[in-house]
């Protein structure tokens, strides 16, 4: 019996020692901890100037963020980071049916950060049914854009036409995205 008691104690200890990174789950906080951001600086946080980048789309054409934003009739840009997973598919499918038709002056980019080449990214775009969907799929083969925006699966970034980040968070149900897009200047 002593050994079982010892094991139970060990398990409890392990549970609490291991919880150093999970205290936010054990005792969630609802306080707003977003740091103040100095406008005019470059970075991925809301209010900062969006870092510029140039990467290839799945047809091999280079796409530069700053050039897209200065195009005619562009109110802003949405970057959505996908690894072609079920959650990504739901988010993209929802965007295709709701946000893309309702915001024709916003350019929607799906950024594939897991494919190792433009050809593979194109293959995934086709296999998952997103060719001609309203998304332009970009191949972030070296995760450079992923790093610039500190993004991960489902990260959704909205950039207005002046190049300022208006949203950088998980897509969730799309409500927040619609609110932000509706408020674009």
């Amino acid at each position, binding site marked *: *019996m002593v*050994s*079982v008691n010892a*094991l*139970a104690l060990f*398990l*409890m200890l*392990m*549970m609490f020692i*291991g*919880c150093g*990174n*999970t205290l*936010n*789950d*054990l005792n*969630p*906080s*609802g*306080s*707003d*901890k*977003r*740091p103040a951001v100095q406008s005019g600086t470059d970075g991925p946080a809301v209010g900062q100037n969006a870092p510029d980048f140039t990467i290839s789309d799945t047809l091999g054409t280079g796409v530069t963020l700053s050039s897209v934003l200065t195009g005619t009739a562009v109110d802003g840009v949405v970057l959505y980071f996908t*690894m*072609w*997973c*079920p*959650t*990504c*598919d*739901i988010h993209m*499918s*929802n965007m295709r049916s709701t946000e893309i038709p309702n915001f024709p002056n916003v350019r929607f980019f799906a950024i594939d*950060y*897991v*494919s*190792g*080449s433009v050809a*593979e990214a194109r*293959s*995934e775009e086709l*296999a*998952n049914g997103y060719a001609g969907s309203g998304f332009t799929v970009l191949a972030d*083969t*070296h*995760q450079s854009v992923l790093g610039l925006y*500190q993004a*991960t*699966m*489902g*990260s959704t970034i909205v950039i207005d036409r002046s190049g300022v980040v208006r949203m*950088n*968070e*998980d897509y*969730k*149900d799309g*409500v*927040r995205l619609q609110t932000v897009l509706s408020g674009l200047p």
Partner: protein
Amino acid sequence: MKLISNRLFAAALFAGAAFLFAPQAWAGSCCGGGGGATLLLPKFYQDMVDVSFDMEQYDGFWNQDGKYTSDPPGSDIRQYRLNIGAARRLASRWQTSIVIPYVWNENKYSGLSSRSDGLGDTTLNLWYEAIDDKSAWKIREFKDLTPSITIGPSLLVPTGISPYDNVNSSFDVTGRGFYRLDGNAVISKTIHPWSASVSLSYGTYVGRSVNEEYGKYVEPYRKNLGDRSSASVSLSYIYYIGSAGSTLTGSGSFSYLHEDDAEINGNRQLLSGFEKNAFGAGIAYSSTDHDWVIRGSWSHAIQRNGWGANFPTTDVYTAGVSYGFR
């Protein structure tokens, strides 16, 4: 004679329990998880320790319409889990247990690879043995068909790494980030050499505030995951090896899992729920004194349209060993 009979009966339950409560793999580095497990102590045992190791191999997913979709070519996505558990009898019909998984994620795509590890979500259980199996050997009258019924709550504690912790990537996730309270029932009937079991569970998550996503503070919101229901049926055959009493038990099972859509700030998050159906098979060896059980099992999600929705299709291979203290 009665003692021997009791011990054989216990051994059968022990072996059955090993299959019934093999860790269920609802994990996924893309979708949260970290495993969960339940230990059920056989009759006549005071304590039990259990160690098992899972290897979960991801191979595609069902999308929201139930269509099976392959993973990107060149991808190799795996999760390994070491589950350590202990069970204790509190009274003649009451028992409790705890299972803690440690999780390793390995994600390889053609363009990147990632490795991470951490604790998974912890499961605490309380069980009440409401009805005993009246006769595991011979059916003489109708009441001999009475199955054993064990019921009890369990609590999933979010000790794993969730998307709402200070992590950089979805690849680092080992837990869901929510407490969940489940009501569980296990109905089991043995008529040697056969044993059949049905396991039912219904769980509800505890809503929480979220102010951080993957290490980035966001505008706070309230989130709750949808209720979860699961069921599994299994059929086992117990084979006695020689005359010393050690047994080999083969088992087949089918399991079903469904989770409703989540809610954000009270609004339903469309299509965030999921469903999974899987078949399983396993084998367990029980030592002559029936204190040791060594087991191996395989769970397979059908990679065809309509067998699930919004969930990865995986194969889970498990090897485990348990020791019971009388």
